[in-house]
C-alpha cells in the first residue's frame, strides 16, 4: 500500500507538485491521470525516493520514505519515465543486473527471471542484446527488470507510451494480472481511455494538485456526466494536454 500525504515540490518558482495526497491500495489498480506537465512524473519520482519532497510524507507499506529510503525502494518495483536499458547487454543480463543489485540469490533470481520472461511473452528476445529493440520490447525488458525482486508495490510511469495496439493490450492484461496477485499497482497516464479501461480508482492531477480521487463510477456521479471523457474535462477545466 502506498500513502501520499500533502506532497510539495518546487523547482525555482515553478510549483511542480503543490499538495498531492492519495492512497493506492493493495489488490487495486490506481491510475494517476493528468495532462502533460501536471506533476505526475515528479510525484512518482518522490514516491520512489529519487527526489526529496520539500514537504509532505510518503509511506510505502507503512515505511516512511524520508527515514528509510532503501527499505522503501525494496518494496517497490518501478518503471520510470526513462526506460534506460544497457544496450550492450542482453535482455537477460539487464534483468539479472537489477536482481543482483537487490541482493537476490542466484537460484531465486533465475526462477523469477524465467517466470517474468514467460509472463511478458519475451522469450524470443531474451538472449538478444537490447540495442535495436523496438519500443515494446524495451518496455517489456524494463518491466521484467523492475519486477524481478517480486515487489508488493508496482509503479509504472506511462507504461503504454509509444506502444502499438497489440502491445498495449498485452500490457493491460499484465497489469490486471499483477492486481489479481494482490499487488498494489499505481500507474500514471495522460490517456483517458487507458485509465478508464484499467483503473479501480482514479486520481486526477492538474497544476500540481489532486482535483479528484474516486472510483470511475463515483467520478461520473460527481460530475453528472455520462462519459468519463467529459467528466475529466469538466474536472480539469480544460482538455488541453489530454489524449482520448
Amino acid at each position, binding site marked *: 500500500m502506498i500513502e501520499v500525504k500533502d506532497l510539495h515540490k518546487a523547482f525555482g518558482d515553478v510549483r511542480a507538485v503543490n499538495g498531492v495526497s492519495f492512497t493506492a491500495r493493495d489488490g487495486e489498480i490506481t491510475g494517476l491521470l493528468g495532462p502533460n506537465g501536471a506533476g505526475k512524473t515528479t510525484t512518482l519520482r518522490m514516491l520512489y525516493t529519487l527526489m526529496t519532497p520539500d514537504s509532505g510524507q510518503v509511506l510505502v507499506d507503512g515505511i516512511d520514505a524520508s527515514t528509510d529510503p532503501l527499505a522503501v525502494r525494496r518494496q517497490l518495483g518501478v518503471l520510470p519515465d526513462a526506460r*534506460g536499458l544497457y544496450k550492450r*547487454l542482453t535482455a537477460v*543480463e539487464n534483468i539479472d543486473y537489477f536482481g543482483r543489485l537487490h541482493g537476490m540469490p542466484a537460484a531465486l533470481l533465475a526462477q523469477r527471471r524465467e517466470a517474468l520472461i514467460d509472463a511478458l511473452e519475451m522469450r524470443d528476445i531474451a538472449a538478444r542484446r537490447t540495442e535495436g529493440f523496438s519500443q515494446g520490447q524495451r518496455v517489456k525488458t524494463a518491466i521484467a527488470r523492475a519486477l524481478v525482486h517480486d515487489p508488493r508495490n508496482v509503479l509504472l510511469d506511462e507504461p503504454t507510451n509509444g506502444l502499438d495496439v497489440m502491445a498495449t493490450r498485452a500490457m493491460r492484461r499484465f497489469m490486471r494480472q499483477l492486481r489479481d496477485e494482490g499487488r498494489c499497482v499505481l500507474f500514471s497516464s495522460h490517456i483517458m481511455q487507458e485509465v478508464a479501461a484499467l483503473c479501480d480508482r482514479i486520481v486526477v492531477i492538474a497544476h500540481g494538485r489532486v482535483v479528484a480521487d474516486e472510483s470511475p463510477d463515483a467520478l461520473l456521479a460527481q460530475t453528472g456526466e455520462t462519459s468519463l471523457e467529459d467528466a475529466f474535462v469538466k474536472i480539469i477545466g480544460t482538455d488541453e494536454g489530454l489524449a482520448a
Partner: protein
Amino acid sequence: MSAFTAVYWKEVRENLRDRRTLINALITGPLLGPVMFIMLMNVMVNRELAKTDRPLVVPIVGADLAPNLVAALKSAGIDATAPLSDPENAVREQRTDIVVRISPSYPTAWKNGQPVQVELIYDSSRRDASTPVMRVRSVVEGYGKREGAMRLIARGLSPTTAWPVQVADRDQATSQSRSALMFSFLPYFFVLTVFLGGMYLAIDLTAGERERQSLEPLFVNPVARWKILAGKLGAICSFSVVSLLLSVAAFATAPWFIPTEKLGIALDLGWRFGSQVVLLMLPLILLLAALQSLVSAFAKSYREAQTYLSILMIIPVLPSALLSVIPVRAEPWMYAVPLLGQNLGIVQLLRGDGMPAWQMGLCLAGGFVTAALAVWGTAQLYRSDRLAISG
C-alpha cells in the same frame, strides 16, 4: 553477491563489449607513449650520430690564404669547399650551417707571428647546426693552441706559461643519469596512459548513463549511491591499471629498439623500475578515475563529457612541462603534490638514484589523500537529486 561486485562486473563486462573503450584502454593508451618515445629517440640519436661521424663540408672564404689551417681542418674530417659570395645570407637562409672566413691579412700576420682573425659565421638559434659549429670551432681553436705552443717553444719558453689556469672536467653524470635527461618526459607518458585507459569508461559510466537515461532506473534499486559509485570507480581503475601495466611492459622493451650503447648511456626500464612506477602511480589511478567521473557527472551528454575531459587532460602535462623548462631543486614538500611527486620520482628512478622510503611514502600519502578528497567530492555529487534526472 554484494552491490559493489554486481556493479563492478556489469560495468567491466559491458565495456569489454565496446570497441572504442577497448581500443583506448588496451592499444592507444598503453602503446602511444612507448611507440612515440622509441620513434623520437631513434630520430634524435641517428641524427646526432650521423653528424659526428660524417665528413663535414664547409665553405671557406680565403682558403688559399691559409693552407696550413685548411690542412688541419681536413685532417679532422672537415673539407673545404668553394666560398660563397654572401656568407651571412647563406647562413640566414639555411643554405649552409657554417661558413669560415679567413682574413686577407692572414699570410703576413702569420709570417710575422702576430694574432690573426678567423671568423665563424653561423646561427646559434638553429639547434641542428650546433654540432658542425662545435666541430669546426674545436678544430680551429685546437690548431691555434698547438701553433701557439710551438711559437713559445721556439722562443725558449714553456707552453704552460701562456695558460696559468688549467680546467679539468670531472663530470659526475653516470651513464644512467645522462639518459635521464633525455627521458625526462617519460613520466608524462605514464600519466597519459592512465588517463586514456580510464577515460572512455568514466564518460560511459556517468555521462553515458545519463544520456541513455539509465541512471534513473539504476538509482531506484535499494542500493546506496556511494556503493554504485564505488563499483564504477573500481571498474575504471581496473581498466587504467591494465593500461598502465601494458604500457610499463611496452617501455621495458624500449632499450631493444634504441641504440643506447652508441650514446654511451644506460637505460634500465626492467621489472624493478616498472614495479616502482606502478606503485607510484596507484594513487593517481584512483585520483584520475574520481576526477574523470566528477567532471563527466557535470556533462549532460557523452560528447560534452569528452570535451571537458580533453581540457582536463592538459593538467597532467603541466608538471612535466614546467620541470623541463624550469629545472627546480626537489624540495621535500614537492613529493606530496600529486603528479609533481610522481614526476620527480619517476625521473629519479630513471637516473638510477632510487627513491628513499620517505619520498615514496610522501608521494603515496599525498596522492591518496587527494584521491580520497576527489572520491568524496564525486560521492557528494552522486547524492544530488539532479544527477539522476536526464530530461
